[in-house]
């Protein structure tokens, strides 16, 4: 039973949890930046008329969406050394999260751009704007607005997904809980504490998403 739930051990291990939390936060920030970069490139490729860029981008997005992140993570973790690329676990993890989330970000950006009514583009053409001007001055500023809430939703998913990196021994938050569970045989203390920390991050990001929806004047923006 849980009557000997030990708050003292949790306090004792707090520095470890703190380190894990910090690691989870910054590796998520880095991965999200990577995902944005990957997503922008994929979305741009996917919106081309010609098949040369569109088909590979689509294939990549579908392949990522139809396979589990854990299999992708192991693919890189066990596969990269095979190609002679030896990277620290942490880097492999960030790479996997970026490449995985990038596919979802690409779809969000594409949906944002396609949500701009055709009339806007036509007005741009009629005003004699070039393609780049239309993109930069008409489409992207409007698309930017609608993509923010779903992008924050993806950030929430990414933070939660980062827990899987504990399975390749990255010392992040979940790993800290596992250590407490295995060193002291205190799984309840370990996993309940990290669950609380993840909830903290979740409510923070969720609040941010709600706020951003209000700032941007999007009615009924929910994540």
């Amino acid at each position, binding site marked *: 039973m849980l009557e000997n739930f030990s708050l003292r051990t949790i306090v004792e291990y707090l520095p470890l949890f703190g380190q894990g939390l910090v690691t989870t936060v910054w590796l998520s920030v880095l991965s999200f930046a990577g995902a944005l970069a990957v997503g922008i490139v994929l979305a741009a490729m996917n919106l081309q008329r010609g098949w040369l860029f569109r088909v590979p981008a689509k294939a990549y997005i579908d392949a990522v969406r*139809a396979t589990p992140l854990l299999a992708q993570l192991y693919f890189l973790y066990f596969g990269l050394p095979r190609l002679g690329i030896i990277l620290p676990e942490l880097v492999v993890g960030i790479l996997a999260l970026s490449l995985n989330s990038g596919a979802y970000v690409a779809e969000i950006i594409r949906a944002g751009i396609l949500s701009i009514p055709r009339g806007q583009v036509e007005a741009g053409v009629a005003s004699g704007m070039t393609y780049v001007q239309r993109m930069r001055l008409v489409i992207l500023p409007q698309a930017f607005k609608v993509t923010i809430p779903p992008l924050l939703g993806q950030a929430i998913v990414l933070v939660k997904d980062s827990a899987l990196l504990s399975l390749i021994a990255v010392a992040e938050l979940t790993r800290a809980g596992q250590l407490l569970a295995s060193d002291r045989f205190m799984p309840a203390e370990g996993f309940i504490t990290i669950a609380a920390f993840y909830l903290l991050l979740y409510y923070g990001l969720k609040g941010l998403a709600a706020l951003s929806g209000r700032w941007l004047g999007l009615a009924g923006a929910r994540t």
Partner: protein
Amino acid sequence: MIWQQLQSLAGSYPLALRGLGMTVMLSLVSLVLGTLIGFGLGILRTGGNRLISSVIGAWVDLIRGTPFLVQIFLIFFILPELGIELDAFTAGIIALTNLAACFICEIVVAGIRSVPTGQVEAALASGLSRWHRMRQVVLPQAMRIVLPPLVGQYVLLIKDSSVVSAIGLTDLTRVGWLVVQRVPNGLLVFFLVGLGYFIVCYPLIMLARRLEQRMGAAHGEVQL
């Protein structure tokens, strides 16, 4: 070298089949249970009882706010401390069913809320009972909103089932992990593992897309 590896891989096909069977089993059982419970929770949450709906809302938020891996560990390691003995398979089913039910609850709530109030009022005026209002008026109309994300949720569920390999269940991902210890070619092994998931998930993704287009088109909305 590669020939030897291929032979060794071919030798582990019974293991791969077992893993695939486990993945299908886990997904199927939790998909059916999760859908039933999810619909029940969704209907209860829109039912008008404040207490019930806020308890469900809080639980759904707890599940949506924590990583699935942590949920599995909590169930697998803590339920036994509460005196509930369970094996890894049961723990996996409980975790997956709970996850699916929570996400499906949200989908169902959104669907029910999308039905115009006039419809419910008309049903009330016609003297339909609560059960008949739900079954014959609200749910059929809500399904238009519910169906595409529901299929999408099934894809997520199948993918999330890979995480239960962390508590030692021999599913498809775990088989990859076992095989790669003997056949040191991670690219090939996990390409095949990925292919296994892709074959199941990709048709479902296409179906979700088709449904989304059809449901939109059937009601005269503009398609892009």
